[in-house]
């Protein structure tokens, strides 16, 4: 039975909606956080990986003798050495048409990308391990490599995984998903508008790289792995099955995580190797990747090509859209299946458009690049593609881009309705966010200033785009995506001191769960905020939950789970108090941590908890009456709805884009902590800006990674990110448990706004862009071309 149907219940406290400073902040600013590399163990060995310098090569020989003889070295392990200890990596799925190779954790016969791990060296210090790693002699015979999506789609391209017979690892088995009368739409169209979008390979790039600390107890046969990751249970699951251990013999602990953004959702091959090495050596093993390793091998995302055509009327109404996305998986699959990411694009691209017919096709190709790890809003190219298509329509029909969006976005009066793909659209407020944004912008004044600037050689532009994210949407969206939303487990327990522990199976990386989830519990249970402790990231404390901290799921799912569990616990506690104090249970109320009894006396929850735990012989109830476990299934949800506006100033001589201002107007239902919501959106927007203007996992034509440090992989700084104003449409929803996710939306929506703003600034030059990022050389070329720059560089995107 789903939870959360009906009107919002009145919460008792005042925590929900309060911009309370985060409980985690004190340890953050005092350097007292516990990140993975802050931990060590006695007799710990340090590991360093030897990685392929080639994009694609056959391994002819691995010589480790010299390395083994180096000071402090305790082991030098190859794939062959660990063959009996690690099962081939298997991320196969039941998705029809998805072709998944099995491959060794350490490359054995062949390397498939620059950074592919080949050997692990274990030594008494990291420096000794690194010295020895430099002495490992791997002989390679280079093979031709394939890098870009178009090259990899070519059947004659060099095949990465022979058993797959080609590099196309997923081609939609339906050939094309068709919704509505697409062909009819194209027949009736006044105009057919085509657009292409290419987003470059980039990704989460958290400041804390990957790493882990593994220890294996030979006495009990138990593996303990402290790791920086997004789901303790997913890591445990993958470790157990690849290392041949019982689930219950694997304990995964995730402490403070120094950023993740999706990039730490899948287990890495190195995690499995480090744990196997700890078992092999009988000593704890620490792994801390350096920045070059992170950029070469920690994965990258967003290398997507989308080709679209739209059937439109002369006025700009949409009759049908066809889209084909091609995604570049890189060399190996991860635990996050690429077809599911492509399906995110399919099921969100039509968004809140009034669009009667839609056809979609997805292709995924393998290439000699680092694997595609998920990145904040994995299907983000849907918003970029849709908004670029609308921009192309506006351009070809000579319509104002904002007027086109006002014309094509559904209104409140039309709801409930459904997306072309079948998902329910109800309480969608994209139109309201657009109206609110327009109110704040004063476009006529901006247009006048813009034209004035041209005479002075000043080129400024504004971009206004919208997005709709399924965080959490409704059940039929999940159905259209291909999988139902995983129910989320939570446990609440009152301890002997009357304090409440909230055990969740999330592994946050800065979202503030310890604060926001305690706010929920405090209000719903009616106890003081300080009486609640939220426990995360421990496979032995939180119940099994594969998904972890992912998909903007914390607000819609975890907060919902805690709300329902806390309401139940409150009833249970009131009944327990009635039994203990010998009064009628209807008359007992828990308020702010105290039971108010029928005669008006107040008894602290602590007193009851003490008696139940410490004098169970005198207690008519047991400690299990002070606990609740609940698996939360979402009832009706809602969509995260937003409009973003970006102001850009382009130096047409240098090609440099400077962003002046950014505005995001959004609706996330009921806010738990407005400061956290604002921070999530601002941080997401900054990443979207990085993707639009700066960031790229760039490869040379021979497949070597070019951007191996942060001098070359450019992250936006305080001077590149403009002030970001966040406007909440409403602070609270009338619907119960209407907490919608905000983690991904900012990152998803920002890039499209930036590109439109730059094109708007360059309107006098007619510059158009179909490829990101908009670095100075690309901007100058677009200005020089006085037209589109499609296909001006090779497919490698370097």
């Amino acid at each position, binding site marked *: 039975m789903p939870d959360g149907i009906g009107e919002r219940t009145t919460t008792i406290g005042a925590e929900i909606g309060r911009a309370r400073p985060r409980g985690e*902040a004190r340890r953050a600013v005092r350097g007292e956080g516990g990140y993975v590399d802050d931990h060590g163990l006695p007799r710990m060995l340090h590991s360093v990986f030897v990685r392929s310098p080639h994009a694609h090569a056959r391994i002819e020989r691995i010589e480790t003798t010299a390395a083994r003889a180096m000071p402090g070295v305790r082991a030098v392990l190859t794939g062959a050495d660990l063959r009996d200890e690690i099962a081939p990596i298997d991320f196969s799925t039941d998705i029809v048409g998805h072709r998944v190779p099995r491959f060794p954790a350490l490359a054995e016969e062949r390397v498939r990308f620059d950074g592919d791990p080949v050997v692990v060296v274990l030594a008494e210090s990291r420096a000794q391990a690194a010295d020895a790693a430099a002495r490992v002699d791997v002989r390679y015979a280079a093979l031709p490599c394939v890098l870009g999506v178009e090259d990899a789609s070519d059947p004659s391209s060099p095949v990465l995984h022979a058993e797959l017979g080609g590099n196309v690892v997923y081609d939609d088995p339906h050939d094309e998903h068709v919704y509505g009368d697409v062909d009819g739409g194209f027949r009736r169209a006044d105009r057919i508008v085509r657009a292409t979008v290419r987003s470059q390979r980039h990704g989460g790039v958290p*400041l804390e790289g990957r790493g882990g600390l593994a220890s294996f107890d030979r006495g009990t046969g138990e593996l303990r792995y402290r790791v920086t990751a997004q789901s303790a249970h997913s890591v445990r699951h993958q470790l157990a099955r690849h290392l041949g251990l019982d689930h219950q013999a694997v304990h995964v602990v995730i402490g*403070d995580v120094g950023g993740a953004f999706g990039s730490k959702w899948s287990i890495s091959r190195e995690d499995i190797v480090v744990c196997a090495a700890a078992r092999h050596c009988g000593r704890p093993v620490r792994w801390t990747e350096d920045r070059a390793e992170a950029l070469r091998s920690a994965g990258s995302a967003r290398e997507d090509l989308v080709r679209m055509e739209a059937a439109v009327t002369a006025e700009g109404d949409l009759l049908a859209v066809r889209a084909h996305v091609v995604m570049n998986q890189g060399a190996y699959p991860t635990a996050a299946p690429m077809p599911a990411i492509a399906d995110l694009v399919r099921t969100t691209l039509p968004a809140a458009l009034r669009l009667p017919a839609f056809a979609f096709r997805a292709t995924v190709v393998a290439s000699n690049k680092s694997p595609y790890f998920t990145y904040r809003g994995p299907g983000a190219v849907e918003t970029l593609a849709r908004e670029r298509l609308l921009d192309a329509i506006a351009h070809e029909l000579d319509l104002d881009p904002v007027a086109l969006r006002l014309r094509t976005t559904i209104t409140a009066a039309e709801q409930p309705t459904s997306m072309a793909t079948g998902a329910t659209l109800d309480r969608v407020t994209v139109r309201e966010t657009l109206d609110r944004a327009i109110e704040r912008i004063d476009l006529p004044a901006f247009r006048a200033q813009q034209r004035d600037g041209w005479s002075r050689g000043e080129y400024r532009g504004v971009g206004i785009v919208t997005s709709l994210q399924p965080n959490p949407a409704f059940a039929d969206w999940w159905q259209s995506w291909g999988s139902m939303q995983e129910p989320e487990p939570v446990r609440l327990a009152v301890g002997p001191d009357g304090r409440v522990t909230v055990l969740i199976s999330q592994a946050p990386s800065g979202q503030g769960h310890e604060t926001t989830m305690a706010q929920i519990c405090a209000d719903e249970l009616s106890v003081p905020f300080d009486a609640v402790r939220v426990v995360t990231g421990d496979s032995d404390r939180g119940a099994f939950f594969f998904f972890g901290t992912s998909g903007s799921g914390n607000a819609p799912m975890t907060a919902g789970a805690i709300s329902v569990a806390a309401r139940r616990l409150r009833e249970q506690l009131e009944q327990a108090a009635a039994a203990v104090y010998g009064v009628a249970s209807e008359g007992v109320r828990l308020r702010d941590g105290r039971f108010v009894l029928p005669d008006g006396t107040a008894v602290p929850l602590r007193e009851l908890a003490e008696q139940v735990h410490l004098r169970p012989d005198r207690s008519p109830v047991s400690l299990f009456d002070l606990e609740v476990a609940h698996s939360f299934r979402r009832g009706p949800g809602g969509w995260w709805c937003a409009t973003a506006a970006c102001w850009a100033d382009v130096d047409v001589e240098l090609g440099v884009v400077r962003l002046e201002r950014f505005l995001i107007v959004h609706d996330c239902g009921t806010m738990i902590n407005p400061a956290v919501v604002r921070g999530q959106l*601002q941080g997401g927007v900054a990443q979207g800006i990085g993707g639009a203007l700066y960031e790229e996992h760039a490869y040379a034509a021979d497949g070597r990674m070019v951007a191996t440090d*942060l001098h070359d992989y450019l992250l936006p700084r*305080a*001077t590149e990110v403009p002030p970001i104003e966040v406007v909440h449409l409403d602070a609270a929803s009338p619907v119960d448990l209407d907490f919608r996710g905000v983690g991904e939306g900012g990152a998803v929506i920002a890039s499209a706004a930036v590109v439109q703003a730059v094109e708007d600034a360059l309107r006098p030059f007619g510059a158009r862009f179909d490829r990101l990022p908009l670095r100075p050389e690309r901007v100058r070329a677009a200005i020089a071309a006085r037209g589109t720059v499609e296909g001006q560089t090779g497919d490698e995107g370097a």
Partner: protein
Amino acid sequence: MASRTTHFACNGESVAITVDPRTTAAEAIREQLGLTGTHVACQTGVCGTCTVLVDGEPVRSCLMLAVQLDGSTVTTVEGVGADHADGLHPVQRAFVEHHSFQCGFCAPGFVLSTVALLEGDEPLDREVIRDALADNLCRCTGYQAIVDGATAAAERLGRLDPPAGGVDA
């Protein structure tokens, strides 16, 4: 190479460490002094995450050798709030109040860079503060909350007049 012994003061205590000469200051502070609040993120001096104060000046400890600390006075994030009520320097307090961090990994570097800026004598305005904060990278916040926190701390320390109309939007 032979190990070398280096003497310096760290967070008010005199310390002596014996290191392989290639050991960076960041490694020595983390591994030998056990002060793990100094985080390392890029190893090439780009991100400022590993910033510590050496004789009051902000230094990227990933680019400095431990032996270069000899005779100096080092302040790490663990020590910067020691003389203040509740163990929080006004910069740390403002950062807590303004949600200036999310994952917290960059926080120690931002704290020390900002302390150095505010305890220096460069004339400040909001533009100068934003420019100065561009010495460090944050991947989570989009910087607005850090700019807000640093600005509030500057006002509290009398280094900046409160705004006539609203904070830096």
